[in-house]
């Protein structure tokens, strides 16, 4: 049995090592198109501020981790998949046969349709190579424009601000992290960043990027004066890497379509991670989540199915955690609420604390937090177990900060002993 995995990100690596655990003798090949050993994009910001060396970003740390597990690492780019022949074509000109294939090619940043965006010196922050380039051009006094204050933008934001650069963030929407935070929380994050000396322009579009005068670039906005910039970082969103599947017959929409067993429309072909439209736990719909925990869940499940088990995906919870210059925020599931649900909210702008819980009947379906670091995972626990909160729902509506008590009282392991019910 030969397993081939395209993509050496978290989904691919978890799948490879899981396959090895399940099948001691199978051939396992992991194809990545970057020169470095498999590394984590999540760790790039920490590399950028030199908190960790390059090796600190590697997904697996022990020496010869992959070789030791007889996982064959191949640096190459897959140009096409021929499912009928169970074959791949590689950029190097070679072909590769597979018995089972996992597509875990992840995603890449989109380039917004802005005149001048293709110039040199305008970076995305996605690969180690990007990180090196950004690190080389930032520093005290540098003028940086960061386009996009979404999740990725905010992750980079801290690294850029810490470099001592003069940082301006430009975001189209009316708040920061619009796809992770509601208006109240998104604007609290904005106020926090402004308080930390970062300029934040929301509801503002970049119209064009022109050569600058004294600085490398002049950034033309839809309102107000143009911005000078020595470095521009673009973080306006990501898109699944599915281009190479064109003509393969494998069905795609935003990402690769898969079923509960992570199977694509082609026999013996699976997909996982940012490239896959997996089930969203909260909505029951298939969509691209493009987050780390989902990528590893997908990788694990795909490997089990590839190894012949029947492992059905119950859905991944969309969730994010963010640290913007020391303000920690998170959101889970249906944080934006639902038509048939109700909610509880606590806002303390002076302390930059925010807690928003979304319920359907007496079940927690979504949450947003600002300034909470203790036991934040139980929000996932409550959403994932769909546990009925009973009388605790009203208590949470009166004081959402009692979330941990509600969790302990309502979940099984503890209440067995406590008699809290």
């Amino acid at each position, binding site marked *: 049995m030969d397993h081939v995995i395209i993509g050496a990100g978290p989904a691919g690596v*978890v799948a490879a090592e899981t396959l090895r655990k399940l099948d001691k003798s199978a051939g396992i090949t992991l194809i990545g198109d970057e020169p470095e050993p498999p590394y984590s994009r999540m760790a790039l910001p920490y590399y950028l501020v030199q908190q960790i060396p390059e090796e600190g970003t590697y997904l697996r740390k022990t020496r010869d981790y992959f070789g030791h597990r007889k996982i064959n690492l191949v640096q190459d780019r897959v140009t096409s998949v021929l499912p009928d022949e169970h074959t791949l074509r590689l950029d190097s000109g070679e072909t590769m046969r597979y018995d089972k294939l996992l597509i875990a090619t992840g995603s890449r940043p989109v380039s917004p349709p802005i005149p001048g965006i293709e110039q040199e010196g305008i970076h995305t922050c996605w690969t180690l190579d990007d990180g090196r380039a950004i690190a080389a051009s930032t520093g005290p006094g540098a003028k940086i424009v960061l386009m996009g204050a979404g999740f990725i933008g905010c992750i980079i934001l801290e690294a850029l601000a810490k470099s001592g650069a003069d940082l301006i963030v430009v975001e189209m929407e009316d708040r920061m992290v619009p796809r992770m935070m509601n208006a109240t929380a998104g604007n609290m994050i904005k106020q926090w960043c402004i308080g930390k000396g970062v300029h934040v322009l929301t509801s503002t579009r970049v119209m064009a990027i022109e050569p600058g005068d004294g600085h490398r670039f002049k950034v033309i906005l839809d309102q107000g004066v143009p911005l000078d910039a020595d470095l521009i970082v673009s973080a306006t969103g990501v898109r699944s890497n599915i281009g190479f599947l064109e003509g393969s017959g494998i069905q795609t929409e935003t990402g690769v379509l898969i079923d509960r067993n992570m199977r694509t429309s082609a026999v013996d072909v699976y997909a996982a991670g940012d490239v896959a439209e997996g089930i969203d736990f909260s909505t029951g719909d298939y969509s691209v989540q493009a987050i780390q925990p989902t990528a590893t869940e997908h990788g694990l499940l795909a490997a089990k199915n590839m190894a012949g088990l029947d492992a059905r995906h119950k859905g991944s919870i969309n969730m994010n955690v963010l640290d913007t210059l020391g303000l920690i925020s998170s959101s889970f599931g249906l944080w934006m609420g639902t038509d048939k649900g109700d909610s509880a909210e606590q806002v303390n702008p002076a302390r930059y604390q925010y807690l928003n819980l979304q319920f359907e009947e007496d079940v927690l379906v979504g949450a947003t937090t600002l300034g909470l670091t203790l036991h934040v995972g139980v929000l996932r626990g409550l959403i994932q177990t769909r546990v009925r909160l009973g009388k605790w729902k009203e208590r949470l509506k009166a004081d959402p900060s009692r979330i941990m008590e509600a969790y302990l009282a309502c979940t099984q392991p503890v209440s067995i002993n406590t008699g809290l019910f």
Partner: protein
Amino acid sequence: MLKALQIEPAKCTGCLQCELACSWENEQVFNPSKSRIKVFTFHDEGRFVPYTCTQCTEAWCMQTCPVDAIVINETTGAKEVIEEVCVGCKVCTIACPFGTINYNSSSGKVIKCDLCGGEPECAKACPTDAITYVDADHTGLARMRAHAAGGD
């Protein structure tokens, strides 16, 4: 035979000796806010519930860690954070459905129970045996772990 922490809330008086012992062992300071084990008070019900990592088999934190900073101690079965490797990205803190791995803003890393390498100080400090370190197949414990979190 692996051992595990067994927690019996009915025996707990809420004295927080476990939190003091934990923070002393791990941080060399008496500071409940740095403890890996926490006691929750249910005032109106008159209950106290010590709570920490069950070292679950799913190891959500370990699975999701993007930099391989969480590893299994083969002797104790504990999932341990390697502080030098942890970058502080906090993904594990939202991934753990038990809420038992937490970000420590003063170190910029996450912290969780590591069973003190096989001699948990909380169990030693507990005056009422509400926290004991027992064989892992002890009745009730399997059920406690199995609860995991439904979603696979």
